[in-house]
């Protein structure tokens, strides 16, 4: 537990060039503070969000991924954020099926004016992930590790 709480998660955030990225800028201009755990990638639209990006982020060691876009009905490209929504819902189901906690993938709407809201979303996200603990996909399973009965017993002890 304690070991979990001083853990600093790394989160990749995908932002829309027209709303959430500007919201992030606005948060900066207003000097609103939030934890430094989120690293933002700018896309033209949340509709550009390719699930591959999310998989990639997890595979490369992100503890969580945040997708942000314009509010429904306010997409700069009219309705593409709905496509993002659809993909997010299916992607989340798939990740859950692969044992990744649903909370590690989060969709948040933030208009260009909502710097405070975005900052709050980020802060809350970081806290949620902190309690979930690290994912460390990039470390595990990459190097061959032998599972012998010994290992099995070890795991049983651990479990």
């Amino acid at each position, binding site marked *: 537990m304690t070991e979990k709480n001083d853990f*600093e998660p790394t989160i990749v955030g995908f932002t829309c060039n027209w709303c959430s990225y500007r919201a992030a800028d606005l948060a900066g201009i207003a000097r609103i503070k939030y*934890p*430094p755990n989120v690293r933002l*990638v700018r896309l*033209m639209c949340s509709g550009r969000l*390719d699930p591959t*990006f999310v998989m990639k*982020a997890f595979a490369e060691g992100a503890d969580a991924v945040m997708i942000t876009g314009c509010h429904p009905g*306010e997409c700069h490209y*009219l309705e593409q954020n709905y496509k993002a929504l659809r993909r997010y819902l299916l992607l989340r189901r798939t990740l859950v099926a692969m044992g990744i906690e649903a909370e590690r993938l989060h969709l948040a709407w933030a208009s260009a004016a909502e710097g405070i809201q975005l900052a709050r979303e980020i802060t809350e996200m970081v806290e949620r992930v902190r309690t979930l603990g690290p994912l460390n996909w990039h470390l595990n399973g990459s190097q061959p590790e032998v599972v012998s009965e010994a290992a099995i017993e070890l795991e049983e002890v651990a479990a």
Partner: protein
Amino acid sequence: MTTKSNSHPQERIGVYVCHCGTNISAMVDVEDVAQWAADKLEHKGVVIARDYKFMCSSLGQELVEKDIHELKLTRVVVAACSPHLHEKTFRTACERAGLNPYLCELVSIREQVSWVHTDKVAATAKSKAVLSGGIERVLWHEPLDPMTVPIHPATLVVGGGIAGIQAALEIADAGHPVYLVERDASIGGHMAQFDKTFPTLDCAACILTPRMVEAGMHPNITLMTWAEVENVDGYVGNFDVTVRQKARKVITDLCTGCGICEEKCPKKVIDDVYEAGLGYRKAVYTPFPQAVPNFPVMDVENCIYFDTGKCKACEKFCPTEAIDFTQEDEIVEFPVGNIILATGYDLFDARRVSNYGYGHLENVFTSMEFERMNNASGPTDGEIVLRDGKTVPDSVGIIHCVGSRDMNYNNYCSTICCMQGLKFAHLVQERTGATVYNFYIDMRTAYKGYDEFYQKVLEEGTRFIRGKVAEVTDVARLPNEEGKLIIQAEDTLIGKQRRIPVDMVILSSGLEPRHDAKEVAKTFGISCSADGWYIEKHPKLDPVATMTEGVYIAGCVQGPKDIPSSVAQGAAAAARVIGKIQQKEMALEPVRASVLEDQCSGCRICNDLCPFNAILFHEDTMLSEINPALCQGCGTCVAACPAGAITGTGFSNEQVLAQIEGLLMDMSV
């Protein structure tokens, strides 16, 4: 499997970390970041990494240009403020030094790092991460050339209210052709229905009519009333507009506007549009005397001939044989370079507030009904009377904020209702001497001359009760309430419930987006807010442009506003358009999607995803193709293509995947 091969030739990257005075350096160890990039990312191709006080200064820019020349840089990464501020600056710098501007990448370590974090170590680490992301990304950048498109000199103005008229006149006076399309039979819009305008109380018709006539006669303005825009294709500079010219059943070339048809027409109909339901018109009619153009239109639903096959009175009496019962709608098509939407607002339907009794209690009127009643050319010739058409009221209650500032109806403040309510108070006083009560939540009289008007109305002895009216009822409790309308509200300044008996109630109703605002927005490819008001490009700095290049908005379509602001916006939109026209051509960001032909299997998954209809499918070759001019570069199809057959310049898979790798680079190494 076939994976991304790191096959780009060894690039030569220049990295520049900005102090931004102390804006960045106070929270980020910029020297360390630059040093780290030079040491740790050399293998990526970083040949020089500098930190500098003000990268955006001319000296900073020269630094970049010098390095491009001397160190033969092929890529540039600047870690500074948000790309929305200085991306252009550094792209131009690269261009000056002969490097394709799109080979430069900006990473934000100010808005998204130094200004929002409090721990210098963490902030520095994050700066390194985003920088490494930028470096990985820039390796995959490609030289791009912005595409330029010609701008057609003609402009489409939709909506003939005061905002639209203003915009049309400004552009026409500048010598450019304008198509002014109006859905109703005449231009003039809501302003034409008013009698007096606040705060100066000058007569609406007197100031509006000349502008209407001017617009009607202007050589550069093609006026299309009784017409609706059906479809818009194309893109900024080159829109193709399809307009439906509804059948007037009147041949305008022959019609002299003498009005005999209207006079002779036996069918009387309640006029819900111009007279706000308070007056009547004929089945063939010109909406109002000063209508522009002055040709009547025929209301087929109510025409006796179309109903029974008999009558034709209008035709019989028309001296110029201008009546044509066989006339059909016409489809008109023309190209324009820019579009201004000034489609205005709908009045809030006060019947929805059932506790105010409109539509149920006779002597409750809406603001528009009162405007008409008060108008000399209106149904009562300007007499302020009760529904019975004769009794002059002794006491009148005016209710503010009807349908506005109310989660049950509309959340927003309609901005004009307070002044409207005050105007009504003044007019009632002036014309009837009746006792007037104004019920308000907050008195909002900002802008020039408005609060002075409030003072004036206070002086005149109008009774102001601060409280949102709870209900209007005719159920009397006390003798003095018998036969009256009772307005029940809390007088919040004394904290007691009061019941005020009056003869007449006027509801100062708010404004709503047009009922079809959302569909219209779709036709023109722009976005509306959740309420349905159209969204401007920037709420402060770009209030009349929209996110869609070449489409502008003016007047109430952008949000409730009064006449002065509508006119101002009309003129502002016109100025923007004139500017565009004079550029003759404009450059478009080369952020575009394209289909790799041999990889496209014609599955058609992408076909329906583009709101700009940029994706077309060739049945013959079974391939999908993207029209680069229509493509706005959102990248949705790129992400959707199951075969990975669509690529997006500027935001390619390789660029983003590489950036992610960079962002998550293991710093300990």
